[in-house]
């Protein structure tokens, strides 16, 4: 191929790329480019070499000029098309051009546990003065591979994320920073062991406490798949990338209430893309990314070598900044980094133990501050002040009681136990004989109540009679009709009369034990001690941070029908006398979806439990996932809540999760799925994506009971299945057995 032919081919490809990005939209600039190029091709044979060169050069200039012009016309949906284009830069390009050398770990093209996730050990060479430094780094990210089919479009399977997690831990052991590159439309929604949701939850949980600097670069940040490697100290976003809770097509399908196989109109998809505020600029304004890296006009492609240079500079700078922000000796270098764009200074990337502690605390604070500006809290200033004073008092009390006195108290208790043991060993026989003689004295024969309970035949526990507690009447019980159990064909269950089924039977088929869904109120009345519930933060309201069309009305309706201000109710209650802090997600309020308000309430509940040294119980009556209309403000609740939960767990708390009805997507893939003790009521369906989404994404049909609690248990996601009628007893037992010696806090 001659040089001229190559140039023509290059221009043809550039035009094809522009046409792909602008989709079906007619544009005068594109038409002009097309006609000019076609004209040139038509008169190719009649031109001499001089004319060819001149015309090619002017055509090149025209392309450059119009590309710059078209850049300004890009809509959010065009940017989605840019990041999905096969010519878009991919992780392999970055490894080749940003890092000086690298070794791919555990995979070579299709021969990998998951080719859509690439992990590499790389290094960056820095020359400072006369010295050359090689700085190692762990690089990982989704690989779209310029449209290679086996890369699955960067949609990572659970084992791909597990591999990433494994090497995050390796990086932590080796004390080297991690650079993650996010190129995913979302995680592959299959539930094979350990399940997409469970694996993402594990990743986020580990990232919340990683003791090495993490820099994330977002190109295509699709919801849970992005979060699996996206919890970072510095989040850089490429100017033509998108970061969103859901793909615009997915949002359009939900907004348009489309059924299987139906396709949404391009206008609706475009509108959703615009309203979700998925672009880099929007995300920077909202505070979910730290900075934007400007790409060449119409997006970076593999041949844009200048862009890789910029990216290299940016990730080095970001890593330096993180390290210096937590290091003791930093003053001049931190200043130099901030003031100069390319300082020629060396920063060692390994961290001391103290700096590592500072790093995780800094990360915690960074994420806690996110999305708070969108919080709608109608609590009065007086109430807020009172609550703040109360919080401080509890903090002081907790310090004195558990940190100061607790430590000594434990020592005294242990000493007393030892002394008691010694006495028992010395005078055991004498004491037992003496007590036998004393017990024979008339009038002292009466055994203690506790001893009686332990030695006599078991009976109903005093005060715990089922009827006495069941005061809530389900609206389902007010209908004079019978209900058929879905297992009637299999087990021959007879029809059940609704007033019986939804009151005395607690929504459980008396033949096969099938659990019909019950309202969350049933649990409030039947699980917790009577009159023990004290709600807090009830005035935090769900809002519409993106001003998404129609959400205000939907929220108003939900508030009116449920009587709550958000889908999350947080309260303190007791179970057989044991105080617990509870966060409950209610399916009745917008499907129990999680947005800014719900996330904040969950975090505050975890903080309250930590402050008061109480067990933390998440009762998930139902959750449809992250509230898509809140966009990234919703999805950011995944790392935020996980960070809060991790902090609580690390300080020794007991965190229990109980799923009921349907629990899917973001919350399960983060702050719920990370609990070491997750249980489900028999009625539960648990998973990452519903059957419709799985069919749409993977093209596979799934078996009818794919998300049922028993399947989830067999996959190892949850640790047990509870009968609804036994929740109170089971919860009490869980608190007693998992709580430990010093009740819930180690």
């Amino acid at each position, binding site marked *: 191929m001659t040089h001229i032919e190559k140039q023509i081919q290059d221009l043809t490809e550039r035009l094809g790329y522009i046409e792909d990005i602008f989709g079906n939209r007619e544009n005068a600039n594109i038409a002009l480019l097309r006609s000019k190029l076609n004209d040139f091709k038509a008169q190719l044979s009649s031109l001499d070499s001089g004319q060819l060169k001149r015309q090619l050069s002017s055509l090149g200039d025209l392309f450059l000029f119009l590309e710059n012009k078209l850049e300004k016309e890009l809509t959010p949906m065009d940017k989605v098309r840019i990041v999905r284009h096969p010519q878009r830069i991919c992780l392999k390009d970055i490894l080749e051009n940003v890092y000086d050398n690298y070794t791919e770990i555990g995979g070579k093209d299709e021969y990998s546990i998951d080719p859509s996730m690439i992990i590499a050990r790389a290094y960056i060479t820095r020359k400072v003065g006369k010295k050359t430094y090689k700085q190692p780094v762990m690089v990982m990210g989704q690989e779209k591979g310029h449209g290679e089919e086996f890369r699955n479009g960067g949609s990572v399977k659970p084992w791909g994320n597990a591999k990433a997690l494994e090497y995050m831990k390796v990086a932590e052991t080796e004390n080297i920073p991690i650079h993650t590159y996010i190129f995913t439309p979302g995680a592959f929604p299959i539930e094979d062991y350990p399940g997409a949701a469970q694996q993402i939850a594990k990743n986020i949980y580990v990232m919340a406490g990683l003791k090495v600097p993490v820099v994330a670069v977002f190109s295509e940040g699709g919801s849970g798949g992005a979060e699996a490697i996206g919890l970072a100290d510095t989040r850089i976003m490429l100017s033509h990338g998108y970061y969103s809770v859901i793909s615009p097509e997915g949002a359009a399908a939900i907004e348009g209430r489309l059924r299987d196989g139906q396709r949404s109109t391009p206008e609706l998809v475009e509108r959703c893309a615009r309203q979700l505020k998925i672009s880099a600029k929007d995300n920077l304004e909202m505070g979910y990314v730290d900075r934007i890296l400007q790409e060449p006009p119409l997006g970076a492609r593999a041949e844009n070598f200048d862009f890789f240079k910029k990216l290299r500079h940016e990730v080095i700078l970001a890593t330096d900044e993180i390290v210096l922000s937590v290091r003791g000796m930093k003053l001049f270098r931190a200043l130099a980094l901030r003031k100069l764009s390319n300082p020629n200074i060396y920063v060692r990337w390994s961290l001391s133990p103290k700096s590592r502690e500072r790093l995780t605390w800094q990360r915690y604070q960074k994420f806690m501050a996110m999305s708070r500006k969108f919080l709608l809290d109608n609590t009065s200033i007086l109430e807020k002040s009172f609550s703040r004073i109360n919080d401080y008092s509890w903090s002081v009390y907790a310090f004195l009681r558990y940190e100061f006195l607790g430590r000594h108290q434990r020592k005294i208790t242990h000493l007393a136990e030892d002394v008691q043991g010694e006495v028992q060993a010395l005078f055991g026989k004498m004491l037992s004989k003496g007590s036998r003689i004393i017990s024979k004295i008339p009038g002292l024969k009466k055994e203690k109540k506790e001893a009686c309970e332990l030695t006599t035949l078991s009976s109903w526990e005093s005060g715990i009679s089922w009827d006495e507690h069941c005061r809530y009447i389900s609206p389902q019980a007010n*209908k*004079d*009709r*019978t*209900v*058929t159990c879905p297992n009637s064909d299999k087990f021959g269950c007879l*029809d059940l*009369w609704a007033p019986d089924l939804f009151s005395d039977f607690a929504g459980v088929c008396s033949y096969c034990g099938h659990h019909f869904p019950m309202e969350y109120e049933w649990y409030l009345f039947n699980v917790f001690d009577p009159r023990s519930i004290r709600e807090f933060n009830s005035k935090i309201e769900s809002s519409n941070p993106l001003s998404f069309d129609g959400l205000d009305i939907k929220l108003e309706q939900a508030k009116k029908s449920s009587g709550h201000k958000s889908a999350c109710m947080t309260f303190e209650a007791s179970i057989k006398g044991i105080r617990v802090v509870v966060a409950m997600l209610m399916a009745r309020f917008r499907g129990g979806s999680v947005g800014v308000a719900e996330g904040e309430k969950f975090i505050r509940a975890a903080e309250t439990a930590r402050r008061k040294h109480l067990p933390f119980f998440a009762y998930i009556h139902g959750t449809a996932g992250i509230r898509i209309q809140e966009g990234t403000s919703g999805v950011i609740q995944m790392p935020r809540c996980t960070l809060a939960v991790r902090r609580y767990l690390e300080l020794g708390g007991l965190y229990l999760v109980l799923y009921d009805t349907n629990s899917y997507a973001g919350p399960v893939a983060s702050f719920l799925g990370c609990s070491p003790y997750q249980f489900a009521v028999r009625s539960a369906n648990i998973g990452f994506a519903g059957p419709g989404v799985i069919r749409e994404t993977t093209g596979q*049909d799934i*078996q*009818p009971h794919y998300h049922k609690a028993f399947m989830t248990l067999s996959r190892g996601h949850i640790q047990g299945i509870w009968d609804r009628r036994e929740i109170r007893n089971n919860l009490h037992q869980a608190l007693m057995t998992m709580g430990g010696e010093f009740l819930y806090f180690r």
Partner: protein
Amino acid sequence: MIDITSLLEEIKKAPYKELTVFTPHSGRIEFALKEAGTTVHGASGVWNEKPGTLLAYLTREGNRKPVYAPEKGELVMFHDIDDHQFVQAGTPLLKIRHFLTKQEVIDIILKKALHLFLAPEKGRYYFVSAIDTKLKAKGLGHVNIRQGDEVLIISRMKRETVLVYDGPGGIIYTTYFNSSDSVEVGSPLLGVCPNNQVEEIKEVVARIQSGWEEKQ
């Protein structure tokens, strides 16, 4: 001994089976389909998760339950029941004519003509070496077995047990297992037929394979 040719002729005279749909319990009936001649479908999907064509609703004590078609076929007649009439449990509602497929006809014939030897437990099955050698040399339809013969070896978790044939003597006409796959308990392993009927069965099966017309 059965006459296979006449059995086939009999099936040919009425190449369908008729299924009557009964009410599972009492209630008020509400027909969804009202015309004879309508084509209906049975449950479908990989796990039979999609129900068949909706035939009627049966309402009892406010509980409206759908009644679906159990198999593919044609609605041939409705019993004399009015729409919205109260019916007792077990009342015949309608009749579906299901036209037999090639495989169903072959299955009917083989079921009558062959003795099926079923798997007593889950595991992998092999022929004992004597029978295996004969089968490899002569092929199916030529190896004779009698009651009390050691025929198969069951292998499960490294335990191997010899299995004795306990059915009527005859020729091994067909096998239903593959020695590399695990067989579920109760699944057929062998189809054994009387010595003198082998040729006749083969001929009838070939005739069905080539000449049977399936109605859609």
